[in-house]
């Protein structure tokens, strides 16, 4: 049996300036307890790679509010006026990436691929400065893979081997991010005995998870 750590210990593993992938879509499927612990420890200079920055006071929005973030790579920041304001004031640098391209760049990073050829963004501002490659009469953008120092994952169930399951729309970016970081920290809703999760229900193997955050007390 492997042992779980406290959310505060997880936050201590993550140094200032670290590059984080954080699961979630508008804070659904986001590891809130690890985020709370990062805010509490006063993390600074983080790069956050995520679908969005949620809303002020929720999920990644808490990191934005607390001034923990220097850079954001996301598909959408429209739900968080604080991110927009800090971007305009120059406090946070924002790179906007089409949502499917973001998912696939992360997948490529985790799958050992050198990049992605996608039709998304051809002929738009997203193509500026990127290589356009024509194959079989169709144009594609060459998009680089993304990796991070840490992936902060929210799971539904974890077992003692750290196998993970997800529920409904709370999966979103979590399964792909779990392959794309040097250190994977998973925060589950429940921890169950080995065998309680059938092999076919495991969506992220415990072999990929470095640390599990203990259950809510």
């Amino acid at each position: 049996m492997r042992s779980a750590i406290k959310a505060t210990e997880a936050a201590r593993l993550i140094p200032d300036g670290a590059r984080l992938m954080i699961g979630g879509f508008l804070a659904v499927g986001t590891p809130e307890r690890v985020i709370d612990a990062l805010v509490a420890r006063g993390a600074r200079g983080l790069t956050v790679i995520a679908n969005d920055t949620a809303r002020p006071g929720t999920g990644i929005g808490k990191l934005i509010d607390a001034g923990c973030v220097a850079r954001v790579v996301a598909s959408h920041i429209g739900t968080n006026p604080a991110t927009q304001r800090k971007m305009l004031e120059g406090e946070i640098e924002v790179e906007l990436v089409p949502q499917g391209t973001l998912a696939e760049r992360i997948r490529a990073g985790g799958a050992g691929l050198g990049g992605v050829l996608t039709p998304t963004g051809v002929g738009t501002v997203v193509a500026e400065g990127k290589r356009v490659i024509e194959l079989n009469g169709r144009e594609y953008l060459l998009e680089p893979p993304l990796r991070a120092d840490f992936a902060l994952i929210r799971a539904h169930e974890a077992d003692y081997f750290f196998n993970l399951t997800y529920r409904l729309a709370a999966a979103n970016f979590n399964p792909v991010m779990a392959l794309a970081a040097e250190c994977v920290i998973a925060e589950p809703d429940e921890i169950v005995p080995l065998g309680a999760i059938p092999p076919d229900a495991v969506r992220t193997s415990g072999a990929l998870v470095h640390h599990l955050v203990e259950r809510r007390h």
Partner: protein
Amino acid sequence: MDAKELIARRVALELHDWTLVNLGIGLPTLVARYVPPGIRVAFQSENGIIGFGARPPEGMEDPALVDAGGGFVGAVPGACSLDSATSFALIRGGHLDMTVLGGLQVDARGRLANWMVPGTMVAGMGGAMDLVAGARRVVVAMQHAARGRPKIVRELTLPATAARRVTLVVTDLAVVEPTGDGLVLRERAPGVTVEQILATTGAPLRVEGEVPEMRLAPDPSAGAGQALR
């Protein structure tokens, strides 16, 4: 019937039986109310649900079951969940029969702009660029004009969502089909004349003979939709 209902009920006629359809945030979500009787569609939400359904009663929402706008939804029997990479593989890979999206501008080449107004707060494109690049049919549901200014224009002045030509534009005045040979006026809204449409359109619009009045999907209170929703 207000303009949004009119647009939604016309777009609903574009739904094909047993297909996968993505509805954008805002006006396009109204289309789900007017699925014609006998048409069964699965609505996909790009955050990872196929077969989402109406919002459950208050107190019965599932925090993990939301649509791409973050609002609570239900799920119909047969629904499934997907991670984001798989969800966008469906979108980009041509597995989506249709996406219905809002629009800021459509130009004479049929290009859509719907994600950014320079000089204002920048929201980000979210999934819009992938949806337009990948869906088999892209239907734009929007008002014909905004504050008196045409939204169908000769050349986009806002950043494009994709280079691709959209399939159909449905407005409160007309149905316009972008073709390789320019924009064609296909239908007019009830009580609207061709002259009114041309006067409110900022791009050349071809009129081929008699322009029929729009048909609309029935009001759901009158018919029994069998949609997977």
